[in-house]
């Protein structure tokens, strides 16, 4: 308790010695709130930096792990994501407040210019941040943004410098990462020190003339004390500051928990992702829609540059006025700034409404959301390979691209359904009834293999034994005996007789069962299912054979591996 008392006295003494002014108000807490939001960005940013891998092959994977397999990882990323928006919003509110109160005038004009530079750093941080996940959104919206830069004069040069070359790759990601985590936050933190230092030196701008006005109005008793006496910062303003910070944090936490930061599918340069910048750059994006062809320079460079110039020039516009002793902002400044805000806000709203009512865009968003969810689920199941590919997603894509799905997925086409491929359950279901809807019904193989007629547990035992899956030793023994007693050997070789192909007797019509549905077996089947060791000698009728699965000699070794891996993961995301 005594210690608490001491700490309290110490803190209150510190504030009392320093800031002693003005009536407390929530309006004055805005700057502190902004400072807090920036601090939160640093804390969450460092945390993200401790889990992030800044290479094109690993960035997405590291974020998927953070999002799904790290305690509070998704929460921290959400805080950082919405925190960026909070910094932008609070910056604009803070500037508005300064403009309305005229606090950009001397002696605070330098601090205003510093603030404008800081706004650009904030926007730079926002711009460099969303490339880092190397997901569809980050990749494509950065392409758009960098494309806009490229259209400005000298833009090509700037573009090459930003990208670290002329294409998007590891050099780009490293550069953006360095900008986002070292250069821009470092510069912003430094300028923040100056900015806050200057504020503490000059104090907030207080409208003095309250007493004067009273006098002008002919107040009979001229005030002997200032109309509004100052109160110490501690605790009266501090309480308000803390409330504002709490509100900001609570809002961000709620957004992080309830909405969360999106992680799209990994960047795919061949896809048709519809890129949109983050909402705080939508106005620029929308502006560009109005200027096409030769006028493009107006949208990309001239108008934004004019706006920036106006912001920097605000203290100078007002200088004369200040010299005349008028402290309120001139109409040019006031209406210019508010007009600028209105235009930016209007363009942003227009863009948002446009997209929200665009059915085609919404459909495309829906598709990319589905893909994102699928990518995360499949990464969880089969990981990301050294080339940055979600292994099972690539397999699934090949399954569709190579036309496999057009038979195996189409309800109108009879073909074995692949869901659960490689599992004992599916193997046993096949042994139990090969001619079921799930397998051979309606295919050229219908009627080639009889149903086992065994008890369910015996089917499971046979499948486990054939597929080298774990099962109790007595079940495996029983399966071995059943294989003989059920006359499987009339068509099939004994899978334990030896090495694949070597022990396979070409006179046997049935497929070689050594390593049935194993990696090698499956991979070979994909290459050429018509080989005699598969189904080539099951179907002696050429017409029937032509309806069976053809060989795929054009599949590359890599594609075969991806497809096989996907199949053996149980053909996830395919239909039953």
């Amino acid at each position, binding site marked *: 308790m005594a210690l608490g008392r001491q700490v309290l006295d110490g803190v209150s003494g510190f504030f009392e010695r320093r800031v002693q002014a003005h009536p407390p108000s929530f309006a004055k807490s805005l700057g502190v709130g902004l400072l807090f939001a920036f601090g939160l960005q640093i804390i969450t940013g460092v945390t993200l930096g401790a889990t992030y891998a800044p290479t094109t092959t690993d960035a997405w994977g590291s974020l998927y792990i953070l999002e799904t397999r790290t305690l509070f990882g998704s929460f*921290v990323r959400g805080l950082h994501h919405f925190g960026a928006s909070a910094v932008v919003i609070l910056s604009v509110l803070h500037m508005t407040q300064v403009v309305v109160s005229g606090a950009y005038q001397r002696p605070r004009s330098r601090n205003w210019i510093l603030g404008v530079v800081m706004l650009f750093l904030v926007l730079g941080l926002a711009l460099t941040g969303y490339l880092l996940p190397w997901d569809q959104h980050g990749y494509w919206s950065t392409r758009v943004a960098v494309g806009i830069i490229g259209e400005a004069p000298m833009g090509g040069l700037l573009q090459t410098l930003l990208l670290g070359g002329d294409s998007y790759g590891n050099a780009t990601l490293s550069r953006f990462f360095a900008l986002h985590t070292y250069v821009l936050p470092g510069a912003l933190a430094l300028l923040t020190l100056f900015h806050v230092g200057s504020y503490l030196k000059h104090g907030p701008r207080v409208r003095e003339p309250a007493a004067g006005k009273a006098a002008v109005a002919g107040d009979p008793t001229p005030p002997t004390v200032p109309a509004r006496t100052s109160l110490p910062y501690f605790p009266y303003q501090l309480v308000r500051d803390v409330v504002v910070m709490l509100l900001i944090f609570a809002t961000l936490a709620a957004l992080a928990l309830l909405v969360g930061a999106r992680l799209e599918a990994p960047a795919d340069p061949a896809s048709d992702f519809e890129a949109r910048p983050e909402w705080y750059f939508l106005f620029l994006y929308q502006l560009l829609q109005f200027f096409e062809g030769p006028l493009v320079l107006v949208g990309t460079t001239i108008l934004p540059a004019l706006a920036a110039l106006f912001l920097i020039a605000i203290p100078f516009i007002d200088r004369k006025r200040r010299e005349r002793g008028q402290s309120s902002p001139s109409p040019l400044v006031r209406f210019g700034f508010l007009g600028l805000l209105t235009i930016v806000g209007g363009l942003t709203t227009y863009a948002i409404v446009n997209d929200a009512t665009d059915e085609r865009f919404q459909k495309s968003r829906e598709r990319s959301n589905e893909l994102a969810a699928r990518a995360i689920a499949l990464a969880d199941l089969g990981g990301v390979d050294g080339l940055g590919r979600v292994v099972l997603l690539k397999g699934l894509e090949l399954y569709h691209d190579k036309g496999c799905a057009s038979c195996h997925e189409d309800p109108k086409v009879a073909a074995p359904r692949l869901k659960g491929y490689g599992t004992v359950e599916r193997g046993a279901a096949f042994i139990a009834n090969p001619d079921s809807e799930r397998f051979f019904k309606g295919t050229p193989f219908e009627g080639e293999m009889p149903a086992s007629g065994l008890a369910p547990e015996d089917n499971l035992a046979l499948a486990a034994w054939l597929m080298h899956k774990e099962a109790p030793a007595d079940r495996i023994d029983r399966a071995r005996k059943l294989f003989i007693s059920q006359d499987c050997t009339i068509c099939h070789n004994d899978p*334990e007789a030896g090495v694949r192909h070597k022990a396979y007797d070409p006179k046997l019509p049935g497929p070689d069962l050594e390593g049935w549905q194993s990696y090698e077996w499956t991979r070979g089947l994909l290459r050429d299912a018509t080989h005699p060791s598969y189904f080539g000698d099951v179907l002696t009728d050429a017409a029937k054979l032509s309806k069976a699965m053809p060989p795929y000699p054009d599949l590359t070794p890599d594609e075969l591996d991806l497809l096989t891996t996907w199949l053996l993961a149980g053909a996830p995301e395919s239909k039953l």
Partner: protein
Amino acid sequence: MSSTPDEPSPVPAPATPTQADTDRRTALGRIALAAGCALGAAALVGPAGVALSPLLRPAEPSGAASDGWMRVALLSRFVVGALPARVVLRKDVRDQWLVRRGETLGAVLVERLAERDFRVLSSVCPHLGCTVVWQEGQAGAEPVGQWFCPCHKSAFARDGALVPAQSGPPNPSPRALDPLDWRIAGAQLEVRWVRFQTGVSERIAVGRS
């Protein structure tokens, strides 16, 4: 916006604050400080969770889970009566998000005792985890071999049993070489690879990588 009942009225400011004012001020200060500290703590909850996340050992990604059986080699590679063979195990390894194919996991020592009977030992020395190697030696006139660890001279018989040191310091290994489960799957020998804690006499499994 400006004043709440908690505060001394600023108009006009009293020359000396009363005791009640001071009390209110102290209380308000305490609230502000406590709330500020709570806020600071709340802001650090997320980062702390991320930092401490590895302690929770979240369940392995479902794709990484398996029954643990790994292929060693074709049965025909091992001959009854021949010296034990050392086989390196390779596996697709999952490191966080990254899947690496064919990573070296460790080595097993395989001896074919009969047509369908094997002895499979882990090559990890139970002393401190170095890898044992086969060493030919002499016991009197009989040529005998033993498993020998080059790190601290642990020695084990062909079947993995601890060999007491003939001279010099005692055998540093606290237990015999660790046997591994094996099975025959088709034409292949498979093993369930386990790593055991080193330096202790009990056999405690610690992982599969």
